[in-house]
């Protein structure tokens, strides 16, 4: 593979490995994603997909290897420093603030990537961030429950809220961790609409068990197996690949 220069890739992983004790969760992962590219990462349970996300965001730093974000080496950066550079993620298990309202959750997300995080002054009614929070809630269609506590939301609404929070500020690249898990067919269709409707400059990686959703929103697919990159290709190629099919179906349902 050719070494890419700073402007060519939004996200670049070089020989990234992560082990928990003797268990190698990720071995020697190398790939790069162009700005604006939509990439699906597929693989059976335990293939290392979520660990890959945790390495990229810095939740759990990699044991070895390098991660570059828009040309900048972010391997040793704290999570918040990566987020402030335009990286976002959603979580597979809901990590929302259950005791706060929907509006407060989105507002916190907007505030986190702007200045004034330490402000003791309450936001005024015409605060720019309050307005962008309103717009985000409108985008993912949860503005109807804006004043509800997160603990009162349905599962689907919580997933939508996750996406609204990932879109806060000016994201350049988003990691979606199984956004369709547990959603109804209608909610899935809405999710696909939201993902395909994202501005073209925002690239993302989506981890998804639902092949249908994953292949419809992505333009390139990385297959993972046992912590390694197993196969890469266009959605159509991957879909037809017999080796992938047997492995994926065998792994997921076996």
């Amino acid at each position: 593979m050719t070494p890419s220069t700073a402007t060519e890739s939004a996200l670049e992983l070089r020989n990234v490995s992560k082990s928990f004790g003797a268990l190698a969760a990720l071995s020697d992962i190398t790939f790069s994603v162009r700005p604006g590219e939509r990439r699906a990462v597929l693989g059976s349970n335990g293939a290392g997909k979520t660990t890959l996300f945790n390495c990229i965001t810095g939740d759990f730093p990699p044991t070895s290897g390098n991660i570059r974000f828009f040309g900048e080496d972010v391997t040793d950066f704290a999570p918040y420093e990566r987020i402030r550079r335009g990286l976002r993620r959603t979580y597979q298990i809901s990590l929302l603030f259950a005791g706060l309202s929907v509006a407060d959750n989105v507002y916190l997300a907007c505030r986190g990537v702007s200045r004034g995080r330490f402000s003791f002054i309450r936001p005024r009614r015409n605060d720019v961030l309050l307005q962008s929070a309103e717009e985000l809630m409108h985008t993912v269609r949860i503005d109807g429950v804006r004043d509800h506590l997160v603990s009162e939301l349905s599962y689907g609404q919580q997933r939508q809220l996750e996406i609204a929070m990932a879109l806060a500020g000016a994201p350049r690249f988003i990691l979606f961790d199984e956004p369709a898990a547990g959603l109804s067919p209608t909610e899935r269709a809405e999710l696909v609409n939201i993902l395909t409707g994202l501005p073209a400059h925002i690239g993302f990686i989506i981890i998804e068990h639902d092949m249908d959703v994953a292949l419809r929103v992505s333009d390139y697919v990385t297959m993972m197996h046992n912590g390694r990159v197993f196969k890469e290709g266009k959605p159509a190629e991957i879909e037809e690949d017999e080796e992938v099919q047997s492995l994926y179906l065998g792994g997921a349902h076996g």
Partner: protein
Amino acid sequence: MALFEPHNISRIDRSPGWIERIPGPYWALAILLLIMPSLASDFVLFQIFGWSFILGMIALSLMFLAGYGGMVSVAQMSVAGIAGYMVAIFGESAIDQISMGWPWFVAIPLGILIAAILATCVGWLAVRTEGIYTIMITLAIAAAFFYFCRQNYTVFNGFSGFNGVLPPELFGVDWRTAVPFYYLCLFWAALYFLVVLYVSRSPFGLALQGVRDNPRRMAALGYNVTAHRVAAYTAASIPAATGGILLTWQSAQISPGTISIGPAIDILVVAIVGGLRHPIGPFIGAFVYVLLKTFAVDFLTSLGLSGERFQLIIGLGFLVIVFWSPDGVLGLWEKFRNWQKRDPLRGQEGGIE
């Protein structure tokens, strides 16, 4: 969902006039507290209410850290104590060879500033730990500070500390007489209560509650969790330091006994008995604590028992409250409200909140 729902009205500051939003009971309480000097004796004003407001302020700083930040610090009494000590050292006291006799407008801000710096250092150490370990490390700091003050004679005047520490005679008022001292304490207690209430909905306060609920997620939203926690310690030091200075003035002295392990844990007891979920909690807790501490002896002797067992009554009082309601007096109140709302036929609790 309504089609014409306006999208630009926030919940955070949707105000039909802030005065109208203040609930009725708060008005009643405010008026009662303002006219209290015409109802109560000097002893009650100075000793019961004055002390309650002061302890309430120090416990409020703990409520801010523990209730909003999830960090239980036992070192808040030390923060209050250092401010009291600094005012005695920089200002005037009966210990002429140490006290510098600087004017109050230098000594007081300096005392609060030094308390804030100390609290920031305490926070910087303590935020590396969670839960029970935070309690342990802050307890260790409180103990170290107590022994340091007791053994250091050049700056802290050791065992005897400082006496004759009096408030300045500002506006020609002797602030240590009952009524002025009552209003002085009421003013600062009410101010900090309102500030904490206000800050709880500010970006800093919301983020602090986010850090309490889910630090990992807050980092993934771009927040520097460690910095936020340390800043909370700094902010909480201000009401604690003010309380410490008022406490020093009330007894006109500060000594290692003021900041020993007992008082440090009493602040924790006050905050928990009152309730950590709302800034009114610490003041309720402080009032209960002061009442028990003041009248337990009289209560025992009236029953024909030895007054020496007053600690037993205090302990039992707290045990009863915490046993019935882990959320303190505030939690008892909520339980009572829910009980009132319950359906009389089915006996089920109705709308909560």
